[in-house]
């Protein structure tokens, strides 16, 4: 089998090309020693099978950025038969540098001039035959987005592969010696090629982008418009997502009642509990995230592909750079108020690892809709209607506050080493096909990476709350209850009693189940729960419990996502332990402070 590597600078439509080339069968592959996700796909090309690998977008071959090191490492350790270098046609005059660097490696390559539709519109003219002659490699124009020229390119790639096969060219297995690249020489060559084969107007005529930017990046209107856009995206994702999630839950419930329970009726109660309340509920937890992830990436792809995300980075940078983040982190932080899981996955647009980890550390502080359910319940039970909005608002304040404090504290540890130089692409119309493929890839990615982890976690909590088998489920006599009493020296000073500690343990799985779990713990129906809780605790205790619930681990799925996205157990541990500590500290300060003031 032949291996093809796809290489190019960021924003060249590389992924669009890859998606068109491979359709829906691309997967995240495992490559030794590589810490970022590389998509690859195997497909028949001409008379043989080929594997195509989508390498991260890079500016330079001998690199200092993480992505550049990944590419270098990949080329050093993996034999490659053909490199496809993809360039943005309208920026060819500077992007040729990467192509010339790749040529120095001595691996056969083909240059693909993508976005030919835009180049034509902007008045950039490229003499392909002349360019091909000067470079000594095949050169093809195409629009990966609209498919123009694509079939020809595919054919030519197949032809080149069979030629390589017949000529018996070995795949590259020599060490990539990039240090020898003479950049001054490269510059000179590049200049000569541009002079001879490319005509560029002194100014690109993209009036639409200029007018839109005058509005969207306006000194005073820019930020309000940004929040308006975010508001609509947020509403679209979570208000469409809510009924869909409900539907999935209902469906799972129906399967449970009508199929699984009758099927398992003859088995012992423990086996039934393990399979239904453990494994099946774990599967259910995973499944309820699918609609949200789909919708999130559907709308985020529009924001990203249209070019608006980099504008958002421009608008929010002044504020965010002070805490070591950038505008894109802020967008994900906002989306985290719907659901942390897709927001964490969305940080992949940030290519600096330090920046990405710092963003992933702060996103879980966003008060997501699952936590909101818990807060609304407690606030309704313990606060008067006039105080209720204030209580909820203060929790939103704490959500931002904890995120910013965490960013400030950790910005030294997760430093952004990459210079902040981001391309501002022209505004573009996203295509439905690209958006759907992207959303599908993200869902599959989540399912592949997080399912096992989540199921194990749910089973574990089931075990803790159902054993020893002599104890009533979720009662203080279970292992969870026993743990609660061990932990009482820690939780008493923040006003959280043993029963609430068990609820916090359930909350570790998912905040959606906290109220249901409390009903089980108090052996009550949910309707009576509110008034019972109002009798059992005062508002200071309740608020302390809510603060803790806000700040500590949002849910198992968040942890699973942090683990799969960071690929680091150390980082996962930090993002688990720091919020626990922070939550306790805040609740302690609040609870003891309020009590000292006589409340």
């Amino acid at each position, binding site marked *: 089998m032949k291996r093809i590597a796809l290489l190019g600078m960021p924003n060249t439509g590389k992924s669009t090309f890859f998606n068109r080339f491979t359709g829906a069968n691309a997967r995240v592959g495992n490559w030794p020693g590589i810490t970022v996700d590389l998509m690859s796909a195997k497909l028949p090309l001409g008379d043989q099978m080929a594997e195509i690998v989508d390498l991260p977008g890079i500016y330079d071959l001998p690199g200092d950025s993480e992505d550049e090191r990944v590419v270098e490492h990949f080329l050093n350790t993996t034999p490659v038969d053909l490199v496809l270098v993809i360039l943005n046609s309208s920026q060819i005059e500077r992007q040729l540098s990467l192509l010339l660097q790749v040529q120095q490696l001595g691996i056969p390559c083909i240059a693909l001039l993508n976005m030919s539709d835009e180049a034509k519109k902007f008045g950039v003219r490229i003499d392909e035959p002349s360019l091909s002659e000067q470079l000594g490699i095949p050169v093809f124009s195409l629009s990966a987005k609209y498919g123009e020229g694509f079939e020809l390119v595919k054919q030519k790639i197949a032809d080149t592969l069979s030629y390589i096969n017949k000529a018996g060219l070995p795949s590259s297995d020599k060490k990539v010696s990039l240090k020898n690249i003479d950049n001054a020489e490269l*510059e000179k060559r590049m200049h000569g090629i541009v002079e001879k084969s490319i005509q560029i107007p002194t100014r690109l005529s993209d009036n639409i982008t200029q007018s839109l930017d005058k509005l969207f990046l306006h000194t005073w209107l820019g930020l309000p418009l940004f929040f308006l856009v975010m508001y609509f995206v947020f509403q679209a994702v979570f208000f469409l997502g809510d009924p869909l999630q409900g539907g999935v839950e209902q469906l799972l419930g129906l399967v449970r009642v009508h199929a699984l329970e009758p099927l398992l009726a003859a088995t012992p109660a423990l086996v039934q509990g393990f399979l239904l309340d453990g494994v099946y509920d774990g599967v259910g937890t995973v499944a309820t995230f699918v609609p949200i992830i789909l919708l999130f990436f559907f709308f985020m792809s529009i924001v990203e592909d249209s070019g608006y995300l980099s504008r958002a980075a421009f608008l929010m940078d002044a504020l965010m750079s002070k805490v070591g983040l950038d505008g894109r982190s802020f967008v994900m932080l906002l989306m985290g108020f719907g659901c942390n899981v897709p927001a964490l996955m969305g940080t992949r647009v940030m290519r600096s690892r330090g920046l990405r980890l710092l963003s992933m550390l702060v996103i879980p502080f966003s008060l997501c809709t699952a936590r909101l359910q818990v807060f609304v319940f407690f606030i309704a039970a313990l606060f008067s209607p006039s105080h209720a909005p204030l209580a909820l608002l203060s929790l939103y304040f704490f959500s931002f506050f904890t995120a910013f404090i965490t960013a400030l504290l950790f910005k030294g540890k997760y430093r952004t080493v990459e210079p902040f130089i981001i391309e*501002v692409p022209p505004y573009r119309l996203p295509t439905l096909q690209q958006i759907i493929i992207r959303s599908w890839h993200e869902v599959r990615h989540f399912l592949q990476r997080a399912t096992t982890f989540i199921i194990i976690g749910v089973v574990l909590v089931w075990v803790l709350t159902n054993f020893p088998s002599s104890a009533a489920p979720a009662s203080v006599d279970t292992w969870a209850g026993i743990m609660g009493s061990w932990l009482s020296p820690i939780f008493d000073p923040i006003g959280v009693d043993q029963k609430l500690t068990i609820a916090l343990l359930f909350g570790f799985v998912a905040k959606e189940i906290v109220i249901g779990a409390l009903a089980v713990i108090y052996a009550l129906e949910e309707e009576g729960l509110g008034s019972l809780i109002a009798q059992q605790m005062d508002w200071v205790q309740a608020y302390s419990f809510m603060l803790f619930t806000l700040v500590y681990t949002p849910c198992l799925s968040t942890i699973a996502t942090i683990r799969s996205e960071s690929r680091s157990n150390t980082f996962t541990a930090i993002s688990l332990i720091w919020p626990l500590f922070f939550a306790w500290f805040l609740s302690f300060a609040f609870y003891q402070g309020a009590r000292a003031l006589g409340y």
Partner: protein
Amino acid sequence: MTKQLSILRAGESGIIASLNTHEDYLLRRLMAVGFRVGKQIELIRSAIAKGPLHVRVGTTEVMLRREEAQSIEVTLC
């Protein structure tokens, strides 16, 4: 007259006179996105509160922070 890109006003344009940085990494990144001596450059706008700059260089539009822009000298025209 040359000026640092970071102190240009919105709408001013010129030719890049020099890239002054000792950081090899920054220099290579600047060159890769199109900042090269002799290139036409225009400051389109800057964000409020000392935010980043929006710049057109050659056929590419980029944003960069003021610290990075300090290393770029521009001959006004």
